[in-house]
């Protein structure tokens, strides 16, 4: 289906607002699960927004901006997954793979802007030397608006202006290619999980990975909350144990043994 001018403008407004949050990383409304939902509302297909949100969120789960690294842009990936699925009729899983070039474009532009913004630091230095609080505030706000405007323009161009060539291209794809993208969409959450494990997995907690896996494999559960609660119980127990152990060791020392 086609995206109207009004829908295109609303999508880029959504991108503008969410991009402010993406820079700040405060309310997390830039995560695919939220932007896909709102994109779905704008396009009048909430169902699509929900299913796209589920696949895109999982694929981008471990792709975090920790320590200043910039991953493919999850906000742009979220909006474009919904847009591509809506305009060309492919499933959300297949659209996720097709949204990757846009997410990468967002990543590169983000890196360029963060490099260019280094040029603001001498200005900030001079403001600080003057002790001008209001001027520093203006610099901070304007630089954030600048980055958000760029994201809004990218979304307007990709979602509205070039939707026809994209749709025409996707419609020419043979069935096996679309199916291949869908298979990839089902596998991509693995990347996010592997990246989370890269930072979290240690020899002392590797057993918990398998405990979580086995419970989820053999017990049918609506969501993962029960396992999270179980994990909290386990960490609490081990904290109590180590505290008691410490008290016990301390007691021995007091007795002078």
């Amino acid at each position, binding site marked *: 289906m086609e995206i109207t001018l009004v829908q295109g403008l609303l999508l880029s407004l959504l991108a503008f607002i969410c991009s402010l949050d993406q820079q700040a990383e405060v309310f997390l409304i830039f995560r695919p699960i*939220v932007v896909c939902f709102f994109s779905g509302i704008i396009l009048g297909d909430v169902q699509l927004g929900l299913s796209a949100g589920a696949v895109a969120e999982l694929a981008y789960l471990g792709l975090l901006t920790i320590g200043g690294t910039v991953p493919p842009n999850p906000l742009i990936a979220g909006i474009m997954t919904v847009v591509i699925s809506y305009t060309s009729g492919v499933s959300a899983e297949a659209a996720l793979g097709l949204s990757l070039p846009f997410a990468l474009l967002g990543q590169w532009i983000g890196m360029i802007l963060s490099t260019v913004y280094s040029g603001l630091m001498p200005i*900030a*230095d001079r403001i600080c030397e003057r002790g001008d609080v209001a001027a*520093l505030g203006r610099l901070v706000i304007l630089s954030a608006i600048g980055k958000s405007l760029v994201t809004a323009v990218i979304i307007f161009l990709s979602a509205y202006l070039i939707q026809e060539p994209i749709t025409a291209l996707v419609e020419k794809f043979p069935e096996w290619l679309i199916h291949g993208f869908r298979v990839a969409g089902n596998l991509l959450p693995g990347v996010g999980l592997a990246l989370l494990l890269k930072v979290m997995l240690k020899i002392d907690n590797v057993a918990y990975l398998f405990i*979580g896996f086995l419970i989820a494999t053999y017990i049918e559960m609506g969501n993962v909350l029960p396992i999270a609660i179980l994990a909290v119980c386990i960490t609490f127990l081990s904290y109590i144990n180590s505290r008691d152990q410490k008290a016990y060791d301390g007691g021995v020392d007091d007795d002078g043994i």
Partner: protein
Amino acid sequence: MTVSRNKLTKKDITNMGWLSMVLQFGFNYERMQAMGFCYTMAPYFKKIYGDNTEEVAAAMTNNIDFFNTEMHMATFLNGLILSLEEAGEDRELIRNIKNGLFGPLAGLGDAIFWFTLLPISAAIAVSLNRQNSILGPIVFMVIHFFGAISRIPLGHLGYNLGTNAIDLIRENAASITKAAGVLGVMVVGALIPSYIDFSFPETFVIFDVVPVQGIFDTVLPNILPLGFVLFLYYLVSKKNVNAVKLIFGIIVVSIILSYFGIM
């Protein structure tokens, strides 16, 4: 000459907590969060020193160098630095405390908010989405609204602890990070079978009759998704393959397998 200093109120620290949400505005590779970090405190430096612009400028200049930590922890540090500034501590000391703490605090904050709260909330929201419930995105937003405003009590904590904060962090950072690790790893383990669909179609058989997927299911259900994640983990952590290459690789291999009818 002694410098006169005004006291900050509880309300000031709360407002500072809200303002600290701009931490990453103006982010750049040269000094990362420096601009937002400095601006969060600037209005309160002004409140402390009043019309004494020289002192305001000195306090601002002291906080505009390289800075990068987890966002909630930055608010904690903002509170801590304001209490030190208000007490008239030496600026060199303030600078050293700031530079010494932002690294360990980043590890602590990442473990709690980004490797534990985010995956768990995303997992819950995704499962709701899959039941076609609009509660998915709503629950996600509610959880992270509370996550976002939790920086305000953290700002108060930093302000109230003052210099005591340093010992507290040293004693507890390691054990909290470890506990968050257990929680996060167990949830990731549980996500593997639910969210990765790695299975061969029934039409893919060997010896003309034996479906390949059936063999794997007999050994251990979901063994393929588990093996797949462990393989990716091996690639990212031992071989340092970057995420973008991995994503491209998965798409290319999926398309090839699809072409040959294997998946």
